[in-house]
């Protein structure tokens, strides 16, 4: 049983009379615990694919099965629940709430969860520790560097212990050093805690942290390959 399976997945955007086909019939499976990078030039449809897999958008045609269930059959409430409990998002532009502390930002998903309030603080601090930011708990986003902001976002994605972590160009706004730190944290989460990770990037260097690379071009799969020489993180190796 695959965690995620797509069959002939198609997505088009209608703008007036013009219809743009963004995804042209994709097929693949992603197993639980995989670390997959989706690559492709801009306009190849990789962000749209991630949005569909992340329940943020609906496909135009084809099937998307999440845990063997048709995603199109989820109600609005169920979708919110899946996003909250099973999925974690990391965005290129961090999307932290301004004027809100690191701790409160990380707690945000818990507010919409069924987790008891007494546990929120502990869970949030645990997630912040996992990204190595315990010394920044009471800081606000404006006081953090870009790399630190993205690590807060990772902690936030982590706090509900989701099944899948979606990372949409997580290093896109970072210098290479911070980018490496962020990628190594993501890799560590995958290696040590077994999270399924779906990473979107256009850099081969970043994609090589993953185990498998799906390349898209013009809304179609160009290649789907295993990474032979996986980049191994230096920072968190024992």
């Amino acid at each position, binding site marked *: 049983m695959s965690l995620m399976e797509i069959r002939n997945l198609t997505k088009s955007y209608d703008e007036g009379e013009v219809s743009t086909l963004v995804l042209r019939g994709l097929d693949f499976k992603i197993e639980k615990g995989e670390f997959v990078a989706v690559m492709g030039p801009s306009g190849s449809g990789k962000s749209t694919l991630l949005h569909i897999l992340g329940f*943020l958008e609906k496909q135009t045609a084809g099937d998307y099965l999440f845990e063997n269930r048709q995603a199109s059959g989820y109600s609005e*409430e169920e979708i*919110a*629940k899946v996003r*909250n409990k099973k999925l974690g*998002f990391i965005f290129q532009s961090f999307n932290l709430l301004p004027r809100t502390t690191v701790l409160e930002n990380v707690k945000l998903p818990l*507010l*919409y969860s069924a987790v008891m309030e007494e546990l929120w603080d502990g869970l949030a601090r645990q997630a912040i520790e996992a990204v190595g930011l315990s010394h920044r708990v009471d800081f606000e986003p404006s006081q953090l560097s870009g790399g630190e902001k993205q690590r807060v976002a990772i902690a936030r994605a982590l706090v509900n212990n989701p099944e899948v972590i979606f990372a949409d160009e997580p290093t896109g706004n970072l210098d290479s050093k911070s980018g490496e730190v962020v990628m190594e944290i993501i890799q560590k989460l995958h290696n040590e805690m077994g999270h399924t990770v779906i990473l979107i990037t256009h850099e081969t260097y970043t994609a090589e942290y993953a185990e498998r690379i799906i390349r898209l071009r013009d809304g179609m799969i160009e290649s789907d390959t295993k990474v032979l020489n996986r980049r191994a993180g230096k920072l968190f190796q024992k």
Partner: protein
Amino acid sequence: MLLYHSIKIALVGLKTNKTRSALTILGIVIGVTAIIMVVSLGQGAKDLILSQIEGLGARVIGIIPGRQPKGPTDVLATLTASLTERDLSALQRKENVPYAQDVIPVVFGSETAYYNGQTYRPTLFGGNESMADIYGAYPERGRTVSADDVRGAADVVILGWTVADKLAHGQDLLGDRIKIKGRNFLVIGIMPKKGGASFINFNESVFLPYTTAQKYIFGIKYFNRIIVRADSEANVAVTVEDVKATLRELHGITDPDKDDFGIETQADLLKTVGTVLSTLTVFLAMVAAISLVVGGVGIMNIMLVSVTDRTREIGLRKALGATNRNILTQFLLEAIILTGIGGIVGILLGAGLSFVISLVISNVFGLAWTFTFPVGAAVLGILISTVVGLIFGLYPARKASHMSPIDALRHE
């Protein structure tokens, strides 16, 4: 998600946008302040006026000639000559009206007074020796009308302060003569200068024996009023009945609906004036309430801007698991909390300002003005402002809740 958490989220949202939140509620604050002030000051004015009416004496009963008007077009019915000297002497008899302490006939009207080329048109009050006592109208210098003046229809007058001032320009008129209707009248008293807040403007009045007024000035044989003062407040009701019985017997009336006279007590007057003032206050409060609606439109405007401003936040919250309902609740609560706070601030501000104004009125103008906190208006103010928040917050909140998370996250 619990309501408590929603409130918390809304409060955090408001706190992170302090300046905007404060500016947003300004309209509501002003609206509620206005309502509280109108109601509080209206109550103060009402209390003051009613206490002044009561000051005229709760034991006073007024008898008006003519049938009681049955409507606005029926006013002519009151202008009759049904109260005469015969009624007066009947009412003065102890066996008819045992609890009457004083019975005072009153005639009044305007007439021009002359002195040394100056003219002035005061209101003339003709009464008897008890008149000064019942109106509290004692001259500053000189004397009041005596029983002898009344009996002999003496040509004597007591002048109100303004009358004396207008006629003589500071010259002392006491002991001098003024001319009314071609007849000379001896000035036997001058009234002190009084504050304006009274039912009869003593400053612009002239007092004289009713016999004199009837005979030489108005040329009538009836009275415009007969005032009866009961010996105690407890006996007012009995006295009213005694007066009615006496007059009906004298006028040969068996059906009370055909009475050719009316009775006014302080209680009636208090009720009438109280009703008028309350109506006025409610009207003004409603005008003030309109400003709350204006404030509500302001809230909607700012909330719409806020929703656009925080589009990314909305998208993020949805991506993290917020349902449409969560988002709707958050923005709706923000609006309601805002207007609720606006209402509370408005109540405090309105009460504070009313208190200061009441202090100024009572200290500077020396009136017996009391401050009242209008509990009803306060409750209503909070209620209305909250409802305004609910109504005007709904549209922006719905707009926020229906955003697609992706569009919201892409928003720059």
